[in-house]
């Protein structure tokens, strides 16, 4: 059989009215999400470098904060977020296999994981406030740490919050059968959620462990 020419391939991809095929639309939507995530990398990098400069210039302050805070709660929170990322990809897998009920269970677990992470972060912030590590200026040794710590972690927490809302919307649409024939909406949410997980992997190491 003769091979298709480039023009023939183009014709297959479009319908008679020049509209994009579903596959092309999906590719464009995914590219849009990846480009958005690329811009997020730059924003988070600025916040991370602010913290790294503090870490290098004032190691004693950071080490004292590490001593007082410990890593128990934040490690547990990290496992929760890693698990939610696993639930997310399993939800997409279930929908791709035509298992709508399975998808709803996994995405529901993803949203729950995100909510638990936020509760953990709230507890951590309460402990930090108790120690005197706050966002505003203080006369204590923590004056330089507050902004550098809260900027990246709160900004990340805001992303988790948006992710939980997005997961609930995916659940609502999924329950109506919106993704039965084309799960691109779940895939786009998945890209966002996994990115939030990747950012946390780096923040956890840089801020709490190094």
């Amino acid at each position, binding site marked *: 059989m003769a091979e298709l020419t480039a023009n023939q391939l183009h014709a297959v991809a479009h319908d008679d009215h020049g509209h994009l095929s579903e596959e092309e639309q999906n590719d464009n939507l995914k*590219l849009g999400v*990846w480009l958005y995530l690329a811009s997020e990398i730059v924003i988070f990098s600025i916040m991370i470098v602010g913290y790294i400069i503090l870490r290098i210039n004032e190691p004693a302050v950071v080490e004292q904060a590490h001593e007082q805070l410990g890593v128990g709660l934040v490690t547990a929170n990290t496992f929760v977020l*890693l698990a939610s990322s*696993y639930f997310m990809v399993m939800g997409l897998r279930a929908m791709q296999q035509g298992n709508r009920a399975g998808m709803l269970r996994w995405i529901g677990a993803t949203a729950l994981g995100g909510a638990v992470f936020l509760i953990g972060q709230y507890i951590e912030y309460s402990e930090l406030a108790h120690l005197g590590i706050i966002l505003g200026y203080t006369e204590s040794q923590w004056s330089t740490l507050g902004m550098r710590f809260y900027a990246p972690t709160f900004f990340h927490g805001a992303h988790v919050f948006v992710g939980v809302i997005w997961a609930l919307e995916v659940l609502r649409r999924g329950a109506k059968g919106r993704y039965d024939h084309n799960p691109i909406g779940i895939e786009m949410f998945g890209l966002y959620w996994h990115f939030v997980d990747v950012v946390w992997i780096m923040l956890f190491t*840089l801020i709490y*462990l190094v």
Partner: protein
Amino acid sequence: MAEATHHEGHHSNTVHLLRREITVEGGIYTVVFAALAVLTVIEVLSAEFLKGAIHDIPSAAATLQAIKAIILLGIAIIKSSLVIWFYMHLREEKPLIAIVILLPLLIATQSIMYLLAIPPLGYSV
């Protein structure tokens, strides 16, 4: 490290890991999650161990701190790559997507290096 059997892609429950065939619910995704969990445990234990070593041997603190940073960042980069490669399906995407994500990473890394090179109170004249 591991790959799902090609004929069933990422829907397969069978994974080839270190020349062994493993069948587990969730396939490659479950294997990656297990790897992420194990790496996180190693990361936290390494950090705690090296923190103790830095405290016990003050004369080698700077060297140990550098070793600690390299080990922990190395593990974090491996974990991030696993998520991006398998969970975000970068391995199945067109090269354009890899460029889209690598370009800002490159620019951000270069900017971080530049910012780190500036002394905290500016250059003295």
